[in-house]
C-alpha cells in the first residue's frame, strides 16, 4: 500500500514548466508540467513513445529541451549535461544500464564522480561497503561488472547515485529486469531513500507496482500531459485507461490448452558458454507438445539466449541425440535445414537478427521464406511482394508499404511483421523470445492473439520472456531458467508467481541437488 507523503508543506524539489522537445517528425514532449516534492515517489506513466524517456533525459541533461523551464529547489536552472545534473544531486538509473563491463564496480562508480567528490569521499571502496550495508544493496566494489547478474548491476547503478548523495533519483523501468523477490528488495531501498527525503521519479509499465509504491503519478500520452493521480486511490485498470485513452483489455485471461503428442524434445542439453558474458547450459530437459505454449521465465542472462540459439541452429555447434524435432535429430542440422523441417524462430533482437535493418519488408520476408518464392535460383519478386503485402494487412503493420526498410518501422510494428512472417511458415515449433517487449498495448494484444491462434492450429510454442505477467497470461505450462539450469516444468494453473519467482532465483537448483544426494 502507498504511504502518505510527509512534509507536504515544504517547497517542491523539482518543477517542470512547459517542457517542449521536437524531434524530426515527432513532438516528443509538448508543454509538459510536473512537480516533485522532497521524499516523494512519483510515477511517470505512458505507453511506448509517450515521451517519458525524453522527459527524464531532459531532467538528467542528456537531451536539451526546445523550450520550457526547469526549477530546482525553487531556482531556475539549465541542465546542460549529466555532470551538471549530478552536481545538482540528480541521479539516474538507466533502462539499458550505462555500466562498463570490463571495469570493476568501484571503477564504474569512480568514473561518475568529479575529482572534488572523490577527494571528499576518501576511500571509495570503503564508502561503497558502508552504503551497501546501510541500504542492504549487497554490492562488492572489487567485482568486475561482467560477472554480475542484471539485478546486481542495477544495484551498482543505484549505488552510483547514492555515493553522490542524491536528492532526486530517476529510475527508467527498473523492475522490468528483476525477479519478483528482487523487486521487493528494490522497493525497500526506495522507501528508505524516500523516508530520508530523496525524491524518486519512477518510470514503469507495471501498474500494480505503481499503485504499490508511488505517492503520485503523472500520465503522458503522445507527448502530452493527460492527467495526474494518486495511485493509491486508483486501480491498475483506471490508470491504464488514462494511459491508452480507452479501457485496455487487462488480463482478459485466455483458455489454457494441453497437447498430447510430443513434437519436440530437448534431452540432456549441456553446452559451454561461448564468451565471458555468456551462460553455460546445464543438463536441460523438456518436451513440447503439439498445441501448447511452454513459457520459460527467467531474468535476462540466465541462459535464455544460449538456449534459443542452440535450438534455432544459430549457434552452429552440433549436438547429437539432444534436439529431436518430430522424431528427427536436428542437432546436427544447419539453421536453414531446421527451418525447412518446421522450426520457426522470433528472436529477441528485432533489428539485426529478426530482420535486416536496411532491407525492405519483402526482402526480409524472403530471408526465411525462400521456398515457393525461388524457382531454379530465380526470385519471383512479384509473389514475394504480394505475400509481404498480405502480411502487412493481415497483421495491421503500420508502414508505407512492402518496400519500407525494416529499420523505418517502430518496434511494435516490426515485431508484428516478423511474427506474421514466422507464423506464415506454418511451423511445427515456434521459438519466440520476448514477443511484446517494448510493444504498446494494442500491438501486444494482436501478437497474443496470433500466438494463441497458432497454438490452436496445433503448433507448439516455446515462449521465452522476462515478463512474468505475460507468461502467466499465455503459457499453458511453465518453467524458469537460472544460471543455465531449467526448473521442473509445471502446468500454469498449478503454480504461482511466487513459486516461479523463487525458481527464477534458482531455489530449484539446490532442491534437485539435494534430491540427487538423497537418491
Amino acid at each position, binding site marked *: 500500500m502507498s504511504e502518505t507523503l510527509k512534509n507536504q508543506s515544504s517547497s517542491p524539489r523539482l518543477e517542470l514548466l512547459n517542457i517542449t522537445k521536437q524531434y524530426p517528425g515527432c513532438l516528443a514532449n509538448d508543454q509538459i508540467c510536473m512537480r516533485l516534492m522532497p521524499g516523494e515517489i512519483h510515477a511517470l506513466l505512458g505507453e511506448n513513445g509517450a515521451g517519458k524517456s525524453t522527459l527524464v533525459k531532459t531532467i538528467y541533461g*542528456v537531451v536539451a529541451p526546445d523550450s520550457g523551464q526547469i526549477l530546482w529547489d525553487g531556482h531556475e536552472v539549465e541542465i546542460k549535461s549529466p555532470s551538471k545534473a549530478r552536481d545538482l544531486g540528480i541521479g539516474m538509473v538507466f533502462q539499458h544500464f*550505462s555500466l562498463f563491463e570490463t571495469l570493476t564496480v568501484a571503477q564504474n562508480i569512480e568514473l561518475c564522480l568529479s575529482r572534488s567528490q572523490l577527494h571528499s569521499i576518501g576511500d571509495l571502496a570503503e564508502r561503497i561497503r558502508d552504503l551497501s550495508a546501510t541500504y542492504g544493496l549487497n554490492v562488492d566494489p572489487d567485482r568486475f561488472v561482467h560477472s554480475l547478474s542484471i539485478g546486481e548491476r542495477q544495484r551498482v547503478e543505484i549505488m552510483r547515485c547514492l555515493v553522490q548523495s542524491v536528492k532526486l533519483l530517476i529510475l527508467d523501468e527498473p523492475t522490468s529486469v528483476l525477479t519478483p523477490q528482487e523487486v521487493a528488495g528494490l522497493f525497500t531501498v526506495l522507501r528508505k531513500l524516500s523516508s530520508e527525503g530523496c525524491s524518486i521519479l519512477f518510470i514503469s509499465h507495471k501498474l500494480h507496482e505503481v499503485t504499490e509504491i508511488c505517492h503520485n503519478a503523472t500520465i503522458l500520452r503522445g507527448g502530452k500531459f493527460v492527467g495526474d493521480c494518486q495511485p493509491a486511490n486508483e486501480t491498475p485498470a483506471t490508470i491504464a485507461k488514462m494511459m491508452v485513452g480507452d479501457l485496455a483489455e487487462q488480463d482478459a485471461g485466455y483458455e489454457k490448452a494441453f497437447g498430447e503428442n510430443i513434437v519436440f524434445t530437448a534431452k540432456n542439453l549441456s553446452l559451454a558458454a561461448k564468451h565471458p558474458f555468456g551462460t553455460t547450459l546445464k543438463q536441460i530437459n523438456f518436451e513440447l507438445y503439439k498445441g501448447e505454449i511452454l513459457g520459460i521465465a527467467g531474468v535476462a542472462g540466465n541462459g535464455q539466449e544460449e538456449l534459443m540459439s542452440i535450438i534455432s541452429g544459430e549457434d552452429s555447434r552440433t549436438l547429437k541425440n539432444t534436439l529431436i524435432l518430430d522424431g528427427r535429430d536436428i542437432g546436427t542440422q544447419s539453421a536453414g535445414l531446421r527451418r525447412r523441417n518446421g522450426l520457426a524462430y522470433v528472436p529477441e533482437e528485432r533489428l539485426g537478427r529478426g530482420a535486416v535493418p536496411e532491407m525492405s519488408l519483402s526482402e526480409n520476408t524472403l530471408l526465411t521464406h525462400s521456398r515457393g518464392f525461388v524457382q531454379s535460383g530465380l526470385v519471383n519478386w512479384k509473389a514475394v511482394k504480394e505475400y509481404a503485402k498480405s502480411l502487412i494487412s493481415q497483421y495491421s503493420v503500420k508502414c508505407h508499404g512492402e518496400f519500407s526498410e525494416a529499420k523505418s518501422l517502430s518496434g511494435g510494428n516490426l515485431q508484428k511483421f516478423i511474427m506474421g512472417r514466422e507464423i506464415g511458415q506454418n511451423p511445427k515449433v515456434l521459438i519466440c523470445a520476448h514477443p511484446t517487449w517494448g510493444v504498446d498495448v494494442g500491438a501486444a494484444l494482436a501478437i497474443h492473439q496470433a500466438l494463441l491462434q497458432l497454438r490452436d492450429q496445433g503448433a507448439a510454442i516455446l515462449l521465452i520472456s522476462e515478463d512474468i505477467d505475460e507468461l502467466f497470461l499465455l503459457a499453458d505450462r511453465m518453467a524458469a531458467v537460472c544460471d543455465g539450469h531449467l526448473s521442473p516444468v509445471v502446468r500454469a494453473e498449478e503454480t504461482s508467481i511466487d513459486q516461479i519467482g523463487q525458481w527464477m532465483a534458482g531455489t530449484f537448483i539446490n532442491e534437485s541437488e539435494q534430491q540427487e544426494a538423497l537418491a
Partner: protein
Amino acid sequence: MDIDLITQVLFAAIKTGTPLLFIALGEAICEKTGVLNLGQEGMMLMGAVVGFMAAYGTGNAGFGLLGAMIIGMVMSLIFGFLVLHLGANQVATGLALTIFGTGLSAFIGSGVVGQTITGFQPLSIPVLSDIPVLGKVLFSHDVMVYIAVFLAIIIAFVANKTRLGLTIKAVGENPNAANAIGIKVLRVRYLAVMFGGAMAGLGGAYMSLVYTPMWVENMTAGRGWIALALVVFASWRIGNIVLGAYLFGLASIMHLVLQGMGWSISPNLLAMLPYVATIIVMVIISADKYKEKLLAPRSLGKPFDPRQMA
C-alpha cells in the same frame, strides 16, 4: 655465433623495433577509445618525409621530430574530422588516408631523395653502457630509443592506473554509456586519434632521421600495417606491444644474419620471417580466448553520434 655478433644482433633488433613501437603505442591508445585508424602507413610516411625535410632544411634533427609530429597530427585530424565529425566509415577512411599519405609523401619528397643528413647520434649512458654485452645492447642507443621506452612506461601507467585510463577504456567499451555519465566521447576520441597521429609521425621520423637516415619513397615498407596487426595480437596490452615490437626487430635482423651465414633458403622466404615469427608468438601469448574478449575495445570501429542520442 660469437658474442660480438650476438651483441650486434640484439642492438640492431632494438633499433629496428623502435619505429614499430612508436606507431603501435599510438594506435593502441586510439583503438582503446574505439577508433580504428588504418591510415598508420600514410601518417608514418608523411612523418618520415616531413621530418627529413625539416631536419635537412634546418640542419637540426630536433626540428625534424617536431615537424613529423605536427604532420602526423594534421593527417590524423583529417581522419578524425571525417570519421568522428561526419561519421564516415573508419575502415574506408583509414585506407584512403594511407593511399593519400603514400602518394603525397612521394610527391613532396621527390626533391630530397638521395640527400643525407646527420641524424641523432648514439647517446651512451655513462657507467651502464660499460657493462659488457648488456651495456652495448641496451644503453648505447640514440635518444629516440629511450624516448620510445619511456613513452611505453608512461602509457602503460596512464592506461592502467589513472582515471584518464579508465575514461579511455570506458569510451572504447560503451560510448553511449560514457556519454550518459557525462564523458565527452568525441573529445576523448579526437585526442586519442591525434595522439596516434603524433606517434605515427615519430615512428616515420625515426626511419628517415635515425634508421637509414635518408628519404626514399615508400621507405616504411609496410611497418604501419605490422603495427596495426601487432596491436591486435598484443590484445591492446602495452607490455605485449613492447615485446612484440622488439621481437619483430629481432626477427628482421635474424633474416639478414641467416642469409649472411649462407643458409640455403630462398631470401624471399626468409624475408617472411619477422612477420611470421611475430604473429606466431603474439598468437601464443593471446591464446586465452576467453580472457582476450574482455580486453578488446568492444565498440572498436563503430561510429558514435551524440546527436542521435534520443
